[in-house]
């Protein structure tokens, strides 16, 4: 292995969060305010992943009060404590710079879902539909029963 890559492996973090372009992530970034330290969350979409080895960084974009804000986080930086994925994106480009020109709903990235999740969702949808149908059927039955009810009573009477 090349010495420079080797050094990068040694100096950098041992384990990096596995992130992809298009993912919606929360970056836990350590900030200093005078003496105090606290962790700030920056939530947004990953537009690009740049660099390799220890120089690897992500560009995260979010909309704050109608204004697009982009920040670049070096993934190996000690100030980046964690990157958590809240949603995975389905994208076809390596760099999503086209999102900069978009406004409103069009800035969203379609969610990437695995086969399992898709099946689960489909099942849930079907179950919901079935339940709705059952409820409707029950209601119809109840209504029908209500309509039917007077007759037996009448018979009894």
């Amino acid at each position, binding site marked *: 292995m090349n010495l420079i890559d080797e*050094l990068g492996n040694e*100096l950098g973090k041992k384990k990096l969060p596995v992130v992809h372009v298009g993912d919606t992530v929360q970056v836990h970034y350590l900030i200093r305010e005078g003496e105090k330290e606290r962790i700030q969350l920056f939530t947004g979409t990953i537009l690009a992943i740049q660099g390799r080895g*220890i*120089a690897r960084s992500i560009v995260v974009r979010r909309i704050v009060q109608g204004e697009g804000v982009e920040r670049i986080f*070096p993934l*190996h*930086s000690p100030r980046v404590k964690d990157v958590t994925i809240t949603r995975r994106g389905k994208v076809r480009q390596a760099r999503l710079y086209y999102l900069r020109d978009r406004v409103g709903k069009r800035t969203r990235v379609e969610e990437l879902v695995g086969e399992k999740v898709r099946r689960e969702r489909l099942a849930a949808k079907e179950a919901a539909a079935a339940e709705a149908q059952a409820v409707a059927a029950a209601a119809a039955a109840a209504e029908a029963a209500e309509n039917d009810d007077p007759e037996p009573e009448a018979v009894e009477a």
Partner: protein
Amino acid sequence: MTLILGRKRGMTQVFTEDGTHVGVTVVEAGPCVVTQVRTSEKDGYDAIQLGFGDRSEKRTTKPLQGHYKKAGTTPKRFLREERLSGPADCSVGDTRTCEVFSEGDIVDVIGTSKGRGFAGTIKRHGFSRGLKTHGCMNYRAPGSIGASAYPARVFKGKRMAGHFGNARVTTKNLQVVRVDAKRNLLFIKGAVPGPKGGFVQVQTAKTGAPGAKG
């Protein structure tokens, strides 16, 4: 002044404690062998001669073979002298490692810049380029090189096109960010002349060491 010989290995980056990243050049420095000690009595000045890198015996001339034999070492690829102000405190055969430098030291790095062949004035001296459109035809021409009636000649040293690079270059006042004694590596902030694998000399900064921009 402290000198050590080495090879440029490439660039990477390191993070400081407060999280800022610093671009560094990794230099494989030493171990160097003292191959000769010059004294003012014998040579007229005090210095030590350092050798670095291996070279096969077959490729070494007979006189040099004798020189290395005298020093008790294998033939070396590079030899450089370090001038001393007083008598040397080391003797022939001693080794010098990268630990002569420590974190925070300010150094000068001497190397041979990458050769760029015959280059024009834009690349070589940073001249401006002419317009590419609007009917202009002098894209990369140097422009006027002097007046006509007076001085009626071109001044000496006028910057023109010519051979660029492959020359000795000193980058001054660089900071040593880290020292890896185990692998003989110096991490030096900033860029260093020459290609990867190029021979470099690292020495204590000659000027501006205390207030040097680190």
